[in-house]
């Protein structure tokens, strides 16, 4: 049977580092509640995040060259879902194009056969797929699939589908895009728990090439682990004023219990010590801590995940691909890896992979 490989991954983030501005914004939303503001500040110090990016400009510029975060999120007049989607339609294609161009496809772009897109932060039709194909001069005959609204683990689902495609049609060359503009969905609230959930999310896009060419990471197997009785822990619903998230404080504990109990299933019977590369979705520091404890990993094991969290925050479905991108830069041939991501269900989507060979790609930088 043909092996499917993630040959290359490239990443891009929007131009504005909004982390500090969004922290100030969070404090402002708390309306002078000293107790909540103190806790928010301490939780921010503990978040393990230094930067998050957005197309929303944290400054207000006289020339109106960019969309000011302060105009977009005006107190008492937060934007409607329609207004947010209009911004998505304007910004998302540019970010996707930046990521695809960093794949340096060259003449190879004409050989692409499929495009898979994951996104849970914006929708329109004709959508991102056609817009990207036009901007990046991709074949109009490509088979297109949108994996929508699945949340953070959608990247693993996309890789799973890409693998199925390559294994059934070995000449396939699949472009996978994971694009999220999470910063379009801040909510006007004074609830600390909700504001804390805004503390971790940022925008980003990953583009990957999946083919039968034996370079990069070979995708060996997948596992979808449904955690019983947890449907309310992570929810994501379309509201009148953006998309509304519920992110329960019980998520890390549920992940810890599930990963600890089902580690044999996740690793397909392999011992934990056999895994060299842990590409765990940095959904937040507490999520990474939970996985580390569940599997009794060394602190360095999740270093790549913690670095992505620190540099970019949680970019939903794009995030685990940023971790894999970092790992693809310096793998040792034969190294075994386990990727995992979590989202609504509660479900842990996991993938076992091994390093074939690799090519060094550019790292993400503001575009």
């Amino acid at each position, binding site marked *: 049977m043909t092996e499917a490989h993630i040959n290359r991954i490239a990443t891009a983030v929007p131009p504005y580092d909004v982390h500090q501005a969004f922290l100030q914004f969070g404090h402002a939303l708390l309306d002078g509640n000293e107790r909540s503001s103190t806790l928010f500040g301490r939780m921010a110090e503990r978040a393990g995040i230094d930067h998050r990016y957005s197309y929303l400009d944290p400054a207000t510029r006289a020339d109106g060259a960019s969309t000011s975060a302060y105009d977009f999120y005006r107190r008492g007049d937060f934007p409607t879902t329609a207004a947010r989607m209009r911004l998505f339609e304007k910004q998302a294609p540019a970010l996707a194009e930046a990521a695809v161009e960093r794949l340096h496809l060259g003449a190879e772009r004409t050989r692409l056969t499929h495009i898979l897109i994951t996104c849970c932060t914006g929708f329109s039709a004709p959508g991102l797929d056609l817009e990207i194909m036009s901007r990046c001069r991709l074949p109009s005959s490509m088979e297109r699939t949108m994996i929508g609204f699945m949340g953070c683990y959608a990247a693993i689902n996309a890789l799973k589908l890409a693998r199925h495609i390559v294994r059934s049609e070995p000449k396939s060359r699949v472009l996978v895009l994971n694009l999220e503009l999470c910063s379009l969905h801040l909510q006007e609230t004074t609830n*600390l728990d909700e504001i804390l959930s805004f503390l971790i999310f940022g925008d980003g896009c990953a583009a990957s090439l999946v083919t039968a060419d034996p370079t990069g990471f070979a995708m060996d197997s997948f596992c979808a682990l449904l955690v019983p009785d947890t449907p309310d822990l992570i929810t994501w619903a379309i509201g009148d004023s953006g998309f509304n998230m519920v992110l329960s404080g019980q998520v890390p504990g549920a992940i810890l219990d599930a990963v600890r109990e089902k580690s044999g299933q996740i690793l397909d019977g392999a011992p934990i010590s056999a895994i060299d590369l842990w590409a765990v979705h940095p959904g937040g520091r*507490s999520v990474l801590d939970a996985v580390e404890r569940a599997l009794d990993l060394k602190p360095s094991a999740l270093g790549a995940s913690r670095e992505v969290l620190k540099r970019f925050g949680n970019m939903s479905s794009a995030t685990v691909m940023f971790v894999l991108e970092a790992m693809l830069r310096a793998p040792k041939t034969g190294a075994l890896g386990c990727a995992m991501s979590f989202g609504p269900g509660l479900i842990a989507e996991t993938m076992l992979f091994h390093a074939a060979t690799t090519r060094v790609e550019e790292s993400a930088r503001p575009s």
Partner: protein
Amino acid sequence: MDVEQELQAIVGKKVKDHLEPGTKLVDAGLDSLDVMELAFDIEDRFKVQLPQVGAELISFTYGDLCHLVEKQLAAKTGDALAAPSGSIR
């Protein structure tokens, strides 16, 4: 004063009753903000960093909390045997 006594003193600022090891913090009347404050008070007092400081602590029992603190103290000294006495688990 051992760890348990210290913890009782910190928790006692928020809960008047003496907590049994099996009592969940939420059942003792603490909300998500209370447990966050509790966690930071514990970190400040014992000079440790707890792996959980968020709302997830609300489902912990008092015994879980004590165990967590003792574990962090032991890790801090680098010797599990050096954990202070007073375990209530």
